[in-house]
């Protein structure tokens, strides 16, 4: 057990470093399910209304098949995406505390003190396992407090936690494979994505009596989901998840034994001896293209999904005035389907603003890593350097939103046989989110320019807007709270009336805030650590 020496100390270090983010995600992932119970209980009071709502190819693709009509089962089904989030956070956490540490050389520093060979991996896994366990316990207590039965509440906790454990172990394996944290993340997220797609295809196929139904059984996400909390409570599936986790942890340890600190198992490839890059823009393209491609593809898929379910949703909204009201508050206009789409566009806009902030904060990452300095010591001016990255913060979300509008228009247009009209309408509606998205990017730039040390605070922008947007969809918030979010001031497209004033005001604020940020950046010291 010498190889585990120092694990306790490392766990304390991890908990200290994550003392803010860890409680936040646990509380948020507990609060969302709890808030759904009352909300969805009120919106869909009868078994029939629940069946009608869930019995839709789009929702089955997104969340899977409804296991039963009790409120607990209905809410668990509707929360189908949350375990995926738990898995994502868990694998990212493990990779951050293993591979990123190695890549930056910090673990070498620790490794040379009295820390065993496997202590880093063990500490990252145990912390993540622990966090998931806390989540499960809080969730079970919370769901029970919403008057749901004990057994099911414990089972939904088990569903979430075992999904988190499994993907934490996936992250641990991926972290051993490549010497590069980005590649490790890519491998682990691909496994998560594949598990989700297998479940989505399998469940959709089962719904239509297709031949691919068995695919779901290949997906760990489906295993956890089929615990069916509040229904059959199949505990044996939780045991299967634990066993699979144990196998992966064993694999990760085995791989860790075989490689050196800092190295990966996949060999590093050689690059060109001569470069064609010669400008800040070329460099920015190299640094941003992967992110741009991933977000654009992701948005195109989201557009396809939402466009695909739109017609079915229209039927539900007709029968469910409350659901319609919910979408309207999210940003919808009068017409049934338009109201759904407008709500969807707000969601897409909110997600795109996260990308805008991420791309903008690349500036800060370049500065703190020390990579900005050699570039700025060449004939590249500060504004030009910042502009090369900002281009991706501005046009990147535009391209992603465009892609989602295009695919949504295509999918919905095909369903209602009106492709020619729906595509431009929905592209227009999705691009209509941009003024708000850009404002959040401008705020990120201003923070970077004026208060670089607190740059991560720029994430509060999308965070607050998402919180306001989603809370307001459930319960009508006070006007002043809504007014904080720039998304509130956008025209409700498609279908709503388009007035230029709010757009112009938003764009003007964006330009002013952005210029203040650039001015701050031009005047301040570089680098500020």
């Amino acid at each position: 057990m010498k190889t585990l020496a120092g694990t306790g100390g490392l766990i304390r270090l991890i908990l200290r470093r994550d003392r803010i983010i860890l409680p936040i995600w646990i509380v948020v992932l507990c609060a969302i399910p709890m808030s759904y119970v009352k909300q969805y209980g009120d919106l869909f009071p009868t078994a029939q209304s629940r069946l009608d709502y869930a019995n839709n190819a789009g929702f089955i693709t997104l969340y899977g098949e409804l296991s039963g009509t009790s409120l607990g089962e209905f809410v668990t089904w509707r929360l189908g995406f949350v375990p995926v989030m738990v898995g994502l956070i868990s694998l990212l956490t493990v990779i951050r505390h293993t591979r990123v540490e190695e890549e930056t050389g910090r673990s070498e520093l620790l490794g040379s003190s009295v820390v065993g060979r496997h202590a880093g991996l063990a500490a990252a896994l145990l912390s993540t396992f622990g966090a998931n366990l806390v989540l499960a316990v809080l969730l079970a207590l919370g769901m029970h407090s919403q008057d749901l039965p004990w057994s099911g509440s414990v089972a939904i906790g088990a569903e979430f936690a075992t999904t988190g454990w499994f993907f934490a172990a996936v992250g641990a394996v991926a972290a051993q494979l490549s010497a590069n944290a980005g590649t490790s993340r890519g491998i682990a997220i691909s496994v998560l994505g594949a598990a989700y797609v297998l479940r989505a295809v399998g469940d959709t196929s089962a719904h239509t009596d297709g031949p691919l139904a068995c695919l779901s059984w290949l997906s760990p996400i489906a295993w956890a989901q089929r615990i069916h909390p509040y229904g059959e409570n199949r505990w044996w599936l939780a045991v299967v998840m634990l066993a699979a986790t144990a196998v992966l942890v064993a694999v990760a340890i085995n791989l860790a034994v075989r490689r050196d600190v800092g190295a990966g198992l996949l060999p590093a490839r050689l690059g060109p001896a001569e470069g064609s890059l010669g400008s800040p823009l070329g460099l920015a393209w190299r640094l941003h293209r992967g992110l741009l491609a991933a977000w654009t593809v992701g948005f195109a898929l989201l557009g396809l999904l939402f466009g695909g379910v739109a017609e079915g949703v229209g039927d539900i909204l007709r029968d469910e005035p409350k659901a319609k009201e919910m979408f309207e508050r999210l940003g919808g206009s009068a017409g049934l389907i338009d109201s759904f789409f407008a709500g969807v566009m707000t969601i897409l806009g909110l997600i795109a603003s996260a990308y805008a902030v991420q791309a903008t904060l690349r500036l800060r990452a370049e500065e703190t890593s020390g990579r900005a300095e050699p570039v700025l010591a060449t004939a590249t001016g500060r504004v030009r350097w910042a502009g090369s990255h900002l281009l991706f913060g501005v046009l990147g979300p535009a391209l992603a939103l465009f892609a989602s509008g295009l695919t949504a228009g295509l999918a919905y247009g095909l369903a209602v046989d009106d492709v020619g009209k729906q595509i431009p309408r929905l592209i227009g509606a999705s691009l209509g989110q941009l003024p708000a998205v850009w404002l959040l990017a401008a705020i990120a730039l201003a923070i970077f320019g004026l208060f670089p040390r607190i740059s991560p605070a720029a994430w509060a922008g999308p965070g607050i807007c998402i919180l306001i947007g989603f809370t307001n969809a459930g319960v009508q918030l006070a006007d002043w709270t809504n007014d904080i979010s720039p998304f509130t001031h956008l025209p409700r497209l498609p279908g709503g009336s388009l007035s230029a004033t709010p757009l112009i005001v938003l764009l003007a604020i964006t330009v002013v805030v952005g210029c203040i940020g650039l001015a701050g950046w031009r005047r301040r010291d570089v680098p500020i650590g």
Partner: protein
Amino acid sequence: MPAAISTEGLVKTFGRTRALDGLDLTVRTGEVHGFLGPNGAGKTTTIRILLGMTRASSGTARLLDSDPWSDATDLHKRLAYVPGDVTLWPNLSGGEAIDLLGRMRGGLDKKRKADLLERFDLDPRKKARTYSKGNRQKVALVAALASDVELLLLDEPTSGLDPLMEEVFREVVQEVTDRDGRTVLLSSHILSEVEALCDRVTIIRAGRAVESGTLSELRHLTRTSIRAELAGAMNGLAQLDGIHDLRVEDGLVRFDVDTDEINPVLRRLTEIGVRSLVSQPPSLEELFLRLYEPEAAK
């Protein structure tokens, strides 16, 4: 010819820290100027001000007859910079990074680059993330030394290089200064490197220049160690100026003497009568160590 670099009374404060406290520095055109001082003395801060990255709190700085802050972009076409801790883009190969930095500076000499890659024994096809510390340093060195610029700002450029590569670095710097007449400001902790390369040096401590001059001028500030067997009693020796650490061990008199005061001391010794005498020449190391110590600032 105007000085390539000159600063007067340069002050830089970070909150309550005074990183530079009235620094005067002059680097003449065409010379290799050593820039030495203990950790945290303000060397990197000075170089960042000269690069227009950081703005001085007060005092003046001139670089190639321009203002380093307001004319930064134009100046950067005429200089190259190597930081002491090079980070590169993990996905770019070393060759790509060299070409990128060179082009953004205004062009690289291809033949020279190929020559440097060979002499530094650097494989430019490797991805930056797989480079060792020394190899990352070489990437920045090749990019800077292959550029056609007037001035090189080098901040501990050889940290992490092995002794062989250290030797290559010295040769190359000598070439670019002798042949192309470039000016070099070289911040370094390696005294042999400074001794081999630098025409003049400035030593800073706590943000001020404590000494500046050629190496032979500085040698006058050093002390020679003397060990002598005397024929008589060492009367009056302790009263002489410039004698330090006088002691008797195994019948031998030992002391250090300021290089400037060596003649009167030798005269006194021969008056007493010398049976044998060993004198140890002054070493720069000792001088630097002495100047690095806090009291030396006074």
